[in-house]
């Protein structure tokens, strides 16, 4: 790890100002960032530790009518365990529970969690640059290399590295809003606009739409029947401590026999947190029969692009959607 300046401000505005300086990175739980610094993927000159910021909202989970607000410094563990989250948006709690390990969930914060980078091995070891002729960005993954865990949605011909998180899929599914404070003040953004699709990047390293110094302060989720009847399905190679090969955050609201509202967020199969709006459209207003669910699952992957080792992610992703929706359909509603 390279030497760096370390600062631990207590005021959000000061943190934003300091984080806007060249070479600065924001540090919260550190569970991904320290790894990447040790691997020399990140080499910040300044580390701005925001864990001592005094603004109480950063550490709160608050319900205000049908609005759920999750502070950015709430840990994964706290949010997973929160009674309101469990009752009002179980998919959020489940997506956190099924991620990482007990130790990591106690360290990692919600704000940092959504910013975790791809687990693509070519990204995590910069020495690949010396042996592979690679274009920027370095977090693209390798179409001709080991890419079993690569994405099939939101890819380009040369970019297939998958977004690894779980929590973000439930935020995407529920149409959450992300609250941001920067050197120029506060703003908000639809969560699905936070991450930049590879094809839309303006610069190779533009992973998110956060400007220098901008700090995520909270996530806002509108609670609804579809958040209450929701679940998170995670499919992986072993029973714990593994990233998803495919995952689905799903919410369902019924009106009599037909679907009033359905929400689908997909993980493990896409380059960014992914909302399967096309699949939602197929089901909305329909009876959720096996055939309708199957049609929705197929619609979700209509634009999929597969690579050498990851073609299985299309049927696997479809089946993960089918599993999630079947579970919700058969739930007492």
């Amino acid at each position: 790890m390279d030497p760096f300046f370390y600062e631990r401000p207590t005021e959000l505005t000061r943190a934003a100002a300091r984080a806007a300086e060249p070479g600065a990175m924001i540090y919260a739980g550190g569970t991904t960032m320290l790894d990447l610094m040790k691997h020399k993927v990140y080499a910040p000159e300044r580390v701005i530790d925001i864990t001592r910021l005094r603004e109480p909202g950063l550490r709160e989970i608050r319900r205000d009518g049908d609005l759920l607000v999750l502070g950015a410094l709430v840990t994964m563990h706290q949010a997973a365990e929160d009674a309101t989250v469990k009752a009002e948006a179980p998919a959020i709690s489940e997506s956190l529970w099924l991620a990482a390990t007990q130790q990591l969930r106690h360290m990692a914060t919600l704000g940092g969690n959504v910013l975790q980078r791809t687990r693509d091995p070519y990204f995590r070891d910069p020495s690949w640059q010396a042996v592979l002729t690679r274009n920027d960005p370095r977090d693209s993954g390798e179409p001709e290399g080991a890419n079993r865990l690569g994405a099939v949605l939101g890819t380009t011909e040369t970019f297939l590295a998958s977004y690894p998180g779980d929590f973000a899929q439930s935020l995407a599914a529920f149409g959450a809003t992300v609250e941001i404070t920067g050197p120029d003040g506060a703003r908000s953004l639809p969560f699905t606009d936070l991450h930049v699709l590879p094809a839309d990047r303006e610069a190779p390293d533009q992973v998110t739409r956060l400007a220098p110094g901008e700090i995520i302060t909270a996530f806002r989720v509108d609670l609804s029947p579809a958040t209450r009847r929701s679940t998170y399905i995670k499919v992986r190679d072993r029973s714990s401590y593994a990233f998803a090969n495919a995952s689905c955050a799903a919410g369902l609201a019924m009106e009599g026999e037909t679907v009033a509202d359905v929400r689908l967020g997909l993980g493990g199969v896409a380059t960014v947190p992914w909302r399967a709006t096309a699949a939602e459209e197929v089901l909305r207003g329909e009876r959720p029969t096996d055939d309708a669910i199957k049609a929705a699952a197929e619609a979700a992957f209509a634009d999929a692009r597969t690579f050498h080792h990851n073609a299985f992610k299309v049927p696997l992703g479809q089946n993960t959607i089918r599993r999630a929706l079947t579970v919700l359909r058969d739930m007492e509603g």
Partner: protein
Amino acid sequence: MTRTYDISEAATGLPMIGAPEPRYDGRMKVTGQAVYAADAPVSGTLHAALVLAPQARGTVSAIDAAAAEAVPGVRLVLSHLNYPSDLEAVPTFATGGTTQASWQGFESPELHFAQQPVALVVADTIQNAREGAKLVSLTVADPAEAPVASIFAEAAPEARDISDVIPNVVAGDVDAALSSAAHVVEARYTTPFQHHNPIELYATTAEWRDGGLIVQCPSQWMTGTRAALATKFGLAVERVRVIAAVTGGGFGSKATVMAHTFLAAQAARMVGRPVKLYLSRHDMWTAGSHRPESSHDLRVGMDAEGRLTALDHAQVQQTSRMDDVPLPGTEMTTRMYGWNAVRGTNALVSTDTNTPGFMRSPAEVPAFFALESAIDELCVASGRDPVEVRLASDSMTEPVEGLPWTSRSLAECLRRGAEVFGWEGRSERPGTRTRDGLLIGHGVASAMYPIYASAAVVDVRLGSDLSVRVSAGAQDIGGGTYNVLTQMAAATLGVPLANVTAELGDSDLAPNGVAGGSRQTASLTGAVKDACEKVIAELAQVATKEDGPLAGADPASATVADGKMSIGDRSVPLQEVVALVPFGVVKMRGSWIPASADPKSIMDLYRRGATSLIGFTTDTHARSSFGANFVEVSVDPVTFEIRVPRMVGAFAAGRILNEMTTRSQLMGGMIWGVGSALHEQTEVDPRAARFVNADLGEYFVPVNADVPEVAVEIVPEEDPHINPLGMKGVGELGITGMAAAIANAVYDATGVRLRDLPIRMEHVLQGMQT
């Protein structure tokens, strides 16, 4: 010459299944008190870090170390530019020597594999060493040829016949036997690159003192490491000392001496200070060995009565361009059942990796995955029960040379395992057994591991307070060697277990062979017994002197028990006898040399680290432990996740000295088998011939949640031919049948036959959708 030992409890003082004593070093390890090789403080130590070349082939044409040398605290940048040219090449283990590979340091600028260490930066702190290492800049002249990543790559060279190294095994006319068989299965099975990943990382601290060399490094082989260092640096073996009091797992990875140990020693010599080189998990993927890829073409025949009759097994295995490491899997498969005719052949394919090596049950894990899967396919083809077929094909004589097994309890293991597991036979149609929405499959496979033996030497000291110290330059790699030594000495000397301590892991102690190949317990205990008997004889001489408490009695008939020495009906407290010994202590060196080994083998062991290995077959017998693995798998029909909710292993390995450590060894092997079958694969980039997932975050092994129910059954077995105590090894046995048992259970659950490891969800998905 057939030799039969009296292994009875009366003769040996040992029960056939010994008490379940907890690990001698267990508490120390789980409370963090154990001092591992890299933990031991050495005054004035400098720290080192490796520079790895990312290219798999080519020549390092320039090294720019100026930036590294400018880092404060950097003392040395070692590379081929300043590496001595007069260091001796030490023979590799595969050629009867002690080293992991013929690449042993910076002798040349040539690259043999990706991530090969090409420079070592030595600094006052580990941080500065690593900072310096990062700043070393390499220029590599590209080779004409692209590297070859895998034996399965299109560009892989032809397989080379190695029958001059491992003779083909041929008995009977296998082609005729197959053509007259009622059922024949012909199929190819493959296994991937895998890495051992013991928890304790590789490390070496080297210190030159008084013209000699002291090295602390985790090692399964103290005597061999000492011999290797002595040869490398032109020293007498007495000038070299290797220390590792405990190890945090070895599994074969620490059996042989790796290049980084030589590099640390050379760096220490150049800087005139002790140097510690502590490898990262990532570095370990190429600093040491791995399980090579393999491919197995099998033809297996069964007669109309459901008896296995013929096996034609052609094994192709990966090795490095530098070294041939042949793992003789077909030697075992051709002898496993009462075949009428067999042919076993072996071939190698050289690719651009570091030299492969010994990873827990190196020959058996791949070879028995193939054989025991093929047998399952025959059972499906013939509609027969896999347990019944194996029972019908059991034989107390191996079929190649017609040698009797010293003991063989395969049938008892199959029956006992089936009973404990609740084996109901295969489903009539695969894919029809369900529970809670999951497809359930049951699978079985036989397990075996040959019995090796080495010459062993042990010192036993009995003190005036009846304290006993057992010392050997051997190693406890987690199997409970400390325990068996203390238990054995306590039983033989008739003193409480609490009186006995053991010391291992220091090459200054009595020379011993490698702690690998499941041989150490059976070899060392013979030497402990010999040393203890010499102690008793010495005490009997003293006790029966004219003025002794047992004056006039015959010393040859002395026995000890419960702290007393008895001759006939006279007895005396042992402590009184010890008090009469000059200097008040008795110290004796005991040894054990396997019956058919060269008596000079101990001298070879001492000087060269030669292994004096007694193998799988002798003139009179075939030697192996056997067992049976039963596995239940569940497969989610929607998500295709494969899990192993329960497994049962039944094993027989002769006398069991410690029921608890034996059970734990076998359980560990079975759990590893789940990883080997379902999780573990070192992926290799096809263009760069470089390992991709060199990190425990991406290289999967089972977690606790993956192994909810593991049952180990120890089947009693008496073997009067194998050695004086009737003991066989268990360290490698538990894993050998697991991969096939799981593959067979996956077939039972889904109807999909998968012949390539690891078995993953996409393979089941693809199979079930077509």
